[in-house]
């Protein structure tokens, strides 16, 4: 049995990668997730690794069924992303992807807050690179906003950890804790989980990532947040409420979007809502449901971003208003995308059917009427946008005779593998259920569940078909809560950077002028005084050169005056010593 933190393998891999010949790097990239998979498989349940650092006892490895379930799916998506991005020649992107996957593994196996915080910050920086790497103005701006939000989240996390440490004297990351420290930690986790109103960073940045980068982005940040919420805040009622709301919020905003990857990003918010709601319920069934749904979601959302990325790669476009009629030129991309679309829609025989229903089932067991209705409604919205609207306007719809370039074989391979795993999980749910934190007794394939799902989806499709002529995709964006920091950004920039810069410049000039005058005054006080008196009496300026200001023979004081001043000083000193002291 191993006690090697799997994070080390991927992060070391990222360091080794640039030392290898360029042509070997993509192949080597695949080796590290495979090795990490083997290590995760050998980690014994209940095992841990402890290290002493100053006066702290760190636990960089803590293994239980919850962390291992997330560990498995993280290495799987890292491998699938590696296959999908096999054609990449951008070593920086490959390194960032490995570091991002590795640090995410570090978070899920961290047993103390210090380790968690370090990996949390590495995760933020590595993921930001995958946005910057697209090298477009929009990506650069989105990447900076992403980084600012996550560095803020990191600081909130650090503040919470310190507060908790002062209160409890422990930095171990265990069950729910109370107090302001716990609320700060919850806030930072909520930022990464994209819980509204803290979600806008996700839909702002993920669509701006590189084709491969967005596949990785869709997998790690929000799911590590779900993991830490499940680990530290299971049963917190506020999560149940916000989870159910965000499930519906995401689908409504997704339906208005024009860019395919923004549609998918909003559906991350929606799907994470199911997981957060399950964590909020906090029962064993609900934690199983959240974990199962996170597992399946990573796989099908990765597949959907791969499909959208293949369209972007092939056409250079990702907006539905500019796409259409691609069914002839990209039929395989459509088929594989649809595997992801049916998975996220919880269609029978696909992964979402066996994972999403576990969350809804846990809400039913808890008698949450409104929550069950909201989650079912969110399911309707998911099918509507992802499986109907996007395919219709991208692959069917008006044919715009778009020129396409061939999609590399490895992108198809990555999508096929992801689709295969989604279908395998849908057909054999025990493949998923066996790695869940608690034993699963739930049976998804019952007549009632099948009928419910088929009716829900069929009549959603029917309604879409009825109103399809009235639905248009427009070249518009939808304002979200990022408006509150994007719109005032120029004014804030003006106030904090430009105005301050001007203030510094004026102060610097004044200081230099003062120093210059002072040096003149010290060098020749008589000349300085003559010039000053001359300026103040007749307003003339020596810089204009209109007259001579200083004539040593006229302005220099006579020697008798100097003697008189010295004598006066002497008399004053004498008087002071005689009468005062």
């Amino acid at each position, binding site marked *: 049995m191993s006690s090697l933190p799997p994070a080390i393998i991927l992060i070391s891999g990222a360091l080794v990668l640039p030392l290898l010949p360029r042509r070997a790097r993509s192949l080597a990239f695949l080796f590290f997730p495979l090795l990490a998979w083997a290590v995760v498989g050998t980690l014994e349940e209940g095992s841990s690794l402890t290290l002493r650092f100053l006066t702290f006892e760190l636990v960089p490895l803590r293994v239980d069924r919850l962390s291992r379930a997330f560990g498995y799916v993280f290495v799987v998506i890292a491998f699938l992303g590696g296959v999908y991005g096999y054609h990449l020649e951008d070593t920086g992107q490959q390194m960032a992807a490995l570091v991002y996957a590795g640090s995410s593994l570090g978070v899920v196996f961290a047993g103390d807050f210090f380790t968690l915080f370090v990996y949390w910050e590495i995760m933020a920086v590595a993921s930001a690179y995958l946005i910057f790497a697209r090298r477009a*103005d929009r990506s650069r*701006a989105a990447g900076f906003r992403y980084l600012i939000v996550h560095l803020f989240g990191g600081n909130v996390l650090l503040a919470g950890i310190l507060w908790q440490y002062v209160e409890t004297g422990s930095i171990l990351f265990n069950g729910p804790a109370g107090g302001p420290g716990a609320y700060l930690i919850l806030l930072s986790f909520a930022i990464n989980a994209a819980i509204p109103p803290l979600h806008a960073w996700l839909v702002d940045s993920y669509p701006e990532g590189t084709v491969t980068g967005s596949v990785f982005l869709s997998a790690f940040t929000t799911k590590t947040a779900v993991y830490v919420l499940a680990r530290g805040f299971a049963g917190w009622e506020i999560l149940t409420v916000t989870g159910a709301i965000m499930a519906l919020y995401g*689908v*409504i*905003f997704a*339906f*208005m979007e024009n860019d395919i990857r923004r549609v998918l990003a909003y559906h991350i918010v929606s799907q994470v809502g199911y997981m957060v709601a399950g964590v909020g319920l906090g029962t064993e069934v609900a934690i199983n449901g959240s974990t199962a749904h996170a597992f399946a979601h990573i796989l099908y959302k990765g597949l959907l971003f791969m499909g959208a990325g293949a369209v972007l790669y092939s056409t250079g476009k990702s907006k539905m208003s500019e796409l259409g009629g691609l069914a002839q030129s990209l039929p395989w991309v459509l088929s594989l995308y649809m595997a992801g679309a049916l998975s996220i829609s919880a269609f029978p025989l696909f992964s979402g059917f066996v994972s999403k229903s576990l969350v809804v089932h846990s809400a*039913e*067991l808890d*008698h949450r*009427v409104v929550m*069950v*209705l909201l989650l*079912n*409604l969110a399911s*309707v*919205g998911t*099918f*509507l946008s992802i499986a109907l609207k996007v395919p219709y306007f991208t692959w*069917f719809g008006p044919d715009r005779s778009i020129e396409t370039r061939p999609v590399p074989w490895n992108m198809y391979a990555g999508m096929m593998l992801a689709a295969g795993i989604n279908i395998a999980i849908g057909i054999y749910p025990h493949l998923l259920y066996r790695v869940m934190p608690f034993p699963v007794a739930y049976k998804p394939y*019952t*007549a*009632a569940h099948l*009928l*419910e*799902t088929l*009716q*829900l*989806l*069929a*009549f*959603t499709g*029917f*309604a*879409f*078909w*009825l*109103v*399809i*002529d009235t*639905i248009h995709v*427009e*070249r*518009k*964006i*939808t*304002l*979200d809560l990022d408006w509150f920091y*994007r*719109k005032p*950004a*120029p004014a804030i*920039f003006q106030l904090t*950077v430009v105005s301050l810069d001007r203030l510094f410049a004026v102060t610097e000039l004044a200081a230099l002028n003062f120093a210059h005058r002072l040096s003149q005054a010290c060098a020749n006080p008589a000349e300085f005084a003559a010039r000053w008196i001359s300026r103040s009496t007749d307003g003339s300026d020596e810089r204009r050169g209109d007259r001579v200001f200083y004539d040593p023979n006229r302005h220099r004081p006579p020697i008798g005056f100097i003697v008189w001043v010295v004598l006066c000083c002497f008399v004053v000193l004498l008087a002071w010593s005689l009468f005062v002291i």
Partner: protein
Amino acid sequence: MRRPPVALVPGGFVVAAMADAWFLAGEHHGEFWWSDVYGFFSLLGFFGSLAIMLIAKVVVGPWLQRGEDYYHGSNPP
């Protein structure tokens, strides 16, 4: 794409309700009031999707949608 005849809608509900009645008759399969309403999920799917489209396009859309260059110039240099 050609729109289906609207008359199919009530027909569809009837078929869905009959399917529920056929497979689930006499079986208590849920926790809530709708568990025993045959065809409930067909109604939820149909009206729920119409509601989502309506809210998105008619209620929220006009209020929050802007041109693509709305944020143009909002990025600090």
